[in-house]
């Protein structure tokens, strides 16, 4: 192992790998260090049940495939990356046997909505069309740029008179919940429930004030859900391939114990086995803020105010996800297919939320540390679209249920006692809508609880798969803390580029891409990559 590099990157999630590849392509000598045995972080695909069944343990839905700069900049398709975008993207199935489906074909989506409300179908078409006009401009402005302040944004939108031109860019949305927006625009509870469900799967809770401003993104990308062929880990693999082809090095089983600081500047890292690696130009952390500032940096290198903020002011999502991974002999056949046959071809399926009030009640329960009163997981069968993820004629299944990280009065460890029981409840909830999923149809299954999340991926603190709450108070130039929001840190030469940063988790690559702009400025690198 060499002992000096230009840039040392801590963590090999998609952000760490992509940033490493960008820097390597820029001529830097790069090493990416990974604590676990393999690269990828949340791009983790494992045989959790039976041999040959590939389960995406964390990231399953990739919604920025067409927009994220690394796709082209790093030639990921040339490295073997392949996506499939299912025709029937989503469905909501309701207790009364009805169902609503979202398609890649807008007309079909509107036809489905019109079965519940003609007016809602018209509204959806209008909002979708409006959002589609500028969603990429909006994403390029807000997501793939180091963050501005809300005040700056509001002022600019006022100067441009945008408020009068778009329902989505109204200032009042920055005070409203998604629920309020839905109530103002839609009439049918099931239509509202589906749109709120879509937000929830994206990590945007429908009852949090201010998140109504996210709705153009949520509507504009509602039909852009993509499945990584071969499992999400394939994306990590192609990122590594690009890194390696450009001279970068990935070292796994390389836990960083500390960041070396000399006269206020980050100059390298020390691994858990005592190995010292020098960073000639930059140390870049893509792990959580707590690790970076409370554990890896020497206490003397962290300003006291920042140390206090790290201890007291970081906010994590107050909810997590309970997952069940299944090996199946057949796919679900929903009774609701009698109402809408397309539900059997849908990828992401809401099992039962029929109103925003039902979602709201579950958010309240989960935030209080309780289980949702009734299991209403969402279901996905990836093998319908990528048969390579299961043995021939078989299927993988994924159930996800919103759940607390720590159970009230018992903490996260209680999940070890109830995980199998709760997993069975989730399966029963699925079976209620798809009776063919008998015990014989389910070859094996494994729960993956909120407590398991940080055990596998330490940086998802408290089971927080978004690596920081998605809320107005933790957005843009306030995320994760105001003094850390621009990817630089008070320690010279130390940068942050993980999902703790703007915009948030999910496979966006935005933290890496934005940090790249900052690092390039500081190191004098010539920008060869494309603008968003």
């Amino acid at each position, binding site marked *: 192992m060499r002992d000096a590099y230009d840039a040392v990157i801590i963590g090999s999630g998609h952000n760490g790998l992509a940033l490493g590849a960008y820097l390597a392509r820029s001529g830097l000598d790069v090493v990416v260090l990974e604590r676990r045995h393999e690269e990828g972080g949340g791009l983790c695909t494992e045989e959790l049940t039976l041999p040959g069944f590939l389960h995406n343990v964390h990231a399953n839905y990739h919604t920025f495939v067409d927009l994220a700069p690394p796709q082209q900049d790093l030639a990921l398709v040339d490295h073997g990356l392949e996506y499939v975008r299912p025709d029937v993207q989503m469905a909501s199935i309701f207790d009364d046997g009805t169902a609503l489906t979202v398609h890649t074909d807008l007309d079909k989506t509107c036809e489905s909505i019109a079965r519940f409300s003609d007016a809602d179908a018209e509204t959806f078409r209008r909002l979708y069309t409006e959002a589609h006009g500028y969603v*990429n401009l909006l994403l*390029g402005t807000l997501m793939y740029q180091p963050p501005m302040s809300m005040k700056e*944004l509001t002022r600019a939108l006022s100067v441009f008179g*945008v408020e009068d*031109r778009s329902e989505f860019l109204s200032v009042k949305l920055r005070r409203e919940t998604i629920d309020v927006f839905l109530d103002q625009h839609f009439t049918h509870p099931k239509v509202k429930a589906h749109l709120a469900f879509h937000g929830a799967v994206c990590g945007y809770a429908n009852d949090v004030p201010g998140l109504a401003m996210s709705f153009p993104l949520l509507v504009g990308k509602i039909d852009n859900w993509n499945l990584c062929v071969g499992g999400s880990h394939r994306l990590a693999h192609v990122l590594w391939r690009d890194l390696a082809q450009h001279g970068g090095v990935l070292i796994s089983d390389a836990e960083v114990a500390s960041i070396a600081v000399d006269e206020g500047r980050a100059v390298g890292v020390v691994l858990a086995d005592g190995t010292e690696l020098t960073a000639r130009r930059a140390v870049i952390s893509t792990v959580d803020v707590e690790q970076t500032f409370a554990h890896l940096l020497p206490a003397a290198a962290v300003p006291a105010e920042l140390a206090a903020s790290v201890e007291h002011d970081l906010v994590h999502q107050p909810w997590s996800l309970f997952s069940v991974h299944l090996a199946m002999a057949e796919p679900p056949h929903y009774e609701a297919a009698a109402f809408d046959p397309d539900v059997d071809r849908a990828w992401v399926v809401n099992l039962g939320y029929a109103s925003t009030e039902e979602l709201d009640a579950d958010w309240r329960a989960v935030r209080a540390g309780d289980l949702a009163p009734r299991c209403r997981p969402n279901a996905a069968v990836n093998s319908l679209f990528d048969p390579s993820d299961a043995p021939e004629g078989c299927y993988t299944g994924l159930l996800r249920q919103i759940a607390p990280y720590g159970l009230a009065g018992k903490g996260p460890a209680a999940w070890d006692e109830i995980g199998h029981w709760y997993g069975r409840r989730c399966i029963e909830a699925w079976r209620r809508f798809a009776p063919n999923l008998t015990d014989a149809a389910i070859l094996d299954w494994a729960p993956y609880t909120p407590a398991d999340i940080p055990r596998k991926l330490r940086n998802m603190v408290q089971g927080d798969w978004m690596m920081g709450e998605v809320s107005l108070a933790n957005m843009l130039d306030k995320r994760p803390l105001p003094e850390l929001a621009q990817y630089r840190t008070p320690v010279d030469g130390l940068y942050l580029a993980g999902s703790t940063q703007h915009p948030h988790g999910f496979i966006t690559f935005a933290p890496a891409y934005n940090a790249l702009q900052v690092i390039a400025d500081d190191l004098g690198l010539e*920008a060869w990559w494309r*603008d968003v």
Partner: protein
Amino acid sequence: MPDIYTSEWYDAVRDAINAGVGQLRSVPEGRFVVAVEVVGDGVSPYVDAATERRFLMEIDEGSCLWYRELAPDEDERAHLDGRVDYRFRGPATVFDEIAAGLLDPVDVALRGAIAVKGDMRLLLRNAEHVASLLEAYTNAVSTTWPLGQPPYAGAGPDPHGSLHQQGAATGA
């Protein structure tokens, strides 16, 4: 009155921009190069279908130093110290109608009819300057249209959908 897409017109737009800059409380610091790519759409008589006309503009401390058209085979890098800071690309009819004051450029951007690339933070932080620049491009120059003035009558189905309806409501 200068003809559209002539050196006289570029100079007139430049002068209009600079006249507007004097009214602003603040302008962006530094130099910026803006590229405009006007793509022939088979409707505008000023850009042949399947070809494009390219323009460069340099802004320094808010003022336009120069605005010129590139020859078809001319490398834009010959005019640059660094790289293009902003790039606007879209159909010729849309650009023509903006220049004729028929379309609002903010509406056009919001509806995705013109793609905008570059650091949007600077555009937003200098919104007054950008608005002034757009006003100069859209309404400040009396332009003549030797090959016909938009909207182009008899040009067939509306190529830009609701943009024209919106333009009719907000423009002219």
